[in-house]
């Protein structure tokens, strides 16, 4: 019976579980419950990806009302792929968070933490799966509200101002999306994405539609922290609890990138957005500036979480760069990087959280001598760091490989060279931290016996991600197959001619 409802399950599982987790009330109980639910939705997402790869698009009419009158859920290879990444990371982070948040969040708020986490997961999956432009806004707000809450649970008072800034920026972004959707609706009379796509072509050069496109792009860019609208991200990631940062860094912005891809390719049509509006040049320029400016910012920070946060903005630049290449390979590189970046940033932030668990600080000075004291954590950090740089045999290499290939396909040597130079900056900021960890001594005033390995519940998910980093770096067949079929699916949906020079 459940098979026909497969598409709706990833949303409603966490959605229904959230209030139940609140009722359970006990920290341990709600942790177990939330992890179980998240694991279940991970399993469902896997089933969905398998189904989407074999059968193509799955459509589900909520309430039994056919689209465009009711709300439709649509699962295709692209969003099933991102969905799997999101729910898998969520499960791992939940396992990790049991010990981590005990250190960082006061006991009475643990249940609220798990409830908010489940709400955030429900919102993110809703954004991915829904086929209705307004429904997307609703789920966006669920995930955003839960995110503001999660960020504000941090132990430093600066988390409050970070959360407030995030709230203001996020709400402006959501309101821009609302305006954009309104303008589209006004011109076409429908909210269903598929129906919108088919009716938008009548009005392709309409000023109203183009303004709507612009507003949606700006709104989504705020949500995905595209340079120069990224100002909310570094403080939020720095001051949120470690488990929250690990979750958000590897899911929230990725989902927003997917939303951008979805609006560009399945609603407006790549041809219109790129060839007629020239958005690809704008996106490409912003992406390149993001890569360099934020990688540079990462090299001069002293807080390791801030380093990684700026690195995230730079990595988002790579994803957008992939999209802006307007080719199947470029889009595929973007999609693979969504998945891969989730793996590496998840592992990195978990390792940083582990350091905080033992040392109580995430300043770069706190990393001194940790290579000896916490070998497993630092090994995980090293491998994930190498992956960010893009060393062969890690997933980072795979993403960069396809990105460079995509650029070279169009004989765009400039872009290919810039990608490689960007990696050098990553060497600098990751290298600084590794240098402190392996080549400097533990400060005299710390007792070596207190700084030891973290509990295995924190190590296990961290290493699961690290192993995934290596596994998907060596055996690329699964990710590339899923990503290439997703990219091809997105492109053939509107017969665009690839740009070739």
């Amino acid at each position, binding site marked *: 019976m459940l098979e026909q409802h497969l598409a709706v399950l990833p949303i409603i599982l966490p959605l229904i579980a959230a209030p139940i987790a609140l009722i359970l009330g006990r920290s341990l109980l709600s942790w177990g419950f939330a992890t179980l639910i998240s694991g279940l939705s991970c399993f469902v997402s896997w089933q969905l990806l398998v189904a989407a790869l074999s059968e193509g698009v799955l459509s589900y009419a909520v309430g039994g009302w056919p689209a465009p009158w009711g709300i439709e859920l649509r699962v295709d290879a692209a969003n099933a792929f991102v969905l799997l990444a999101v729910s898998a990371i969520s499960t791992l982070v939940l396992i990790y968070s049991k010990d981590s948040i005990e250190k960082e969040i006061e006991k009475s708020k643990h249940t609220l933490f798990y409830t908010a986490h489940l709400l955030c997961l429900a919102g993110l999956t809703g954004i991915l799966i829904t086929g209705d432009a*307004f429904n997307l*806004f*609703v789920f966006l*707000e669920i995930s955003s*509200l839960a995110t*503001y*809450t999660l960020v*504000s649970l941090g132990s430093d*008072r*600066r988390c*409050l*101002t970070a*959360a*407030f800034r995030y*709230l*203001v920026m996020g*709400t*402006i972004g959501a*309101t821009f999306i*609302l*305006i954009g959707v*309104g303008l589209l*609706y*006004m011109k076409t009379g429908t*909210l269903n994405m598929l129906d919108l796509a088919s009716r938008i072509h009548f009005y392709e050069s309409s000023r109203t539609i183009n303004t709507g496109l612009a507003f949606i792009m700006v709104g989504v860019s705020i949500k995905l922290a595209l340079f120069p609208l990224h100002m909310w991200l*570094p*403080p939020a990631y*720095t001051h949120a609890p470690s488990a929250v940062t690990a979750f958000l860094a590897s899911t929230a912005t990725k989902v927003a990138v997917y939303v951008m891809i979805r609006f560009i390719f399945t609603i407006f049509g790549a041809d219109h957005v790129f060839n007629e509006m020239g958005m690809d040049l704008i996106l490409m320029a912003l992406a390149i500036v993001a890569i360099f400016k934020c990688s540079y910012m990462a090299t001069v*920070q002293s*807080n390791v979480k*801030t380093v990684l946060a700026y690195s995230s903005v730079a990595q988002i630049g790579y994803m957008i760069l992939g999209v802006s290449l307007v080719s199947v390979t470029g889009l595929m590189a973007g999609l693979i990087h969504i998945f891969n970046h989730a793996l590496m940033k998840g592992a990195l932030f978990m390792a940083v959280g582990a350091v905080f668990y033992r040392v109580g600080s995430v300043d770069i000075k706190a990393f001194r001598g940790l290579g000896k004291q916490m070998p497993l954590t630092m090994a995980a950090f090293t491998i994930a760091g190498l992956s960010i740089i893009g060393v062969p045999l890690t997933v980072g290499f795979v993403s960069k490989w396809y990105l460079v290939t995509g650029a070279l396909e169009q004989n765009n040597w400039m872009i290919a060279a810039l990608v490689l130079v960007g990696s050098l900056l990553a060497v600098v900021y990751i290298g600084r931290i590794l240098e402190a960890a392996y080549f400097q001594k533990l400060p005299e005033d710390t007792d070596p016996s207190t700084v030891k390995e973290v509990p295995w519940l924190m190590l296990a998910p961290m290493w699961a991600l690290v192993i995934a980093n290596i596994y998907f770096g060596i055996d690329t067949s699964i990710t590339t197959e899923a990503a290439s079929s997703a990219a091809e699916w997105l492109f053939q949906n509107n017969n665009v001619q690839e740009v070739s020079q």
Partner: protein
Amino acid sequence: MNLILDYYNYWIVVFLMMTGFYIVISANNLVKKIVGLNIFQTSVFMLYISMGKVTGGTAPIVVEGVTQYSNPLPHVLILTAIVVGVATTAVGLSLIVRIKRAYGTVEENEFENKDDAI
């Protein structure tokens, strides 16, 4: 003239939206920022409701003898959006209360000075 009759409503609504937006990005006091955000959102709601209006129509509740109704769909969307707006406002205001307690001020430039950058 026709242009004005057709669009005057939208233009004023755009002006209102931009006033709200200006308050959000220029205000230094956090409470005022939230007020601006609310004005911005309320004006966007007006944009939606304006497009749902049919001249000569009535409220979309079935009444004997009425054939021309205004469009119910924008109303439904905005009902949802209003509630989303108040939810955001509540969370934002409680953040302000906490910020006041932690920093002793709700002026953006003042608490920014109290912490190092980031």
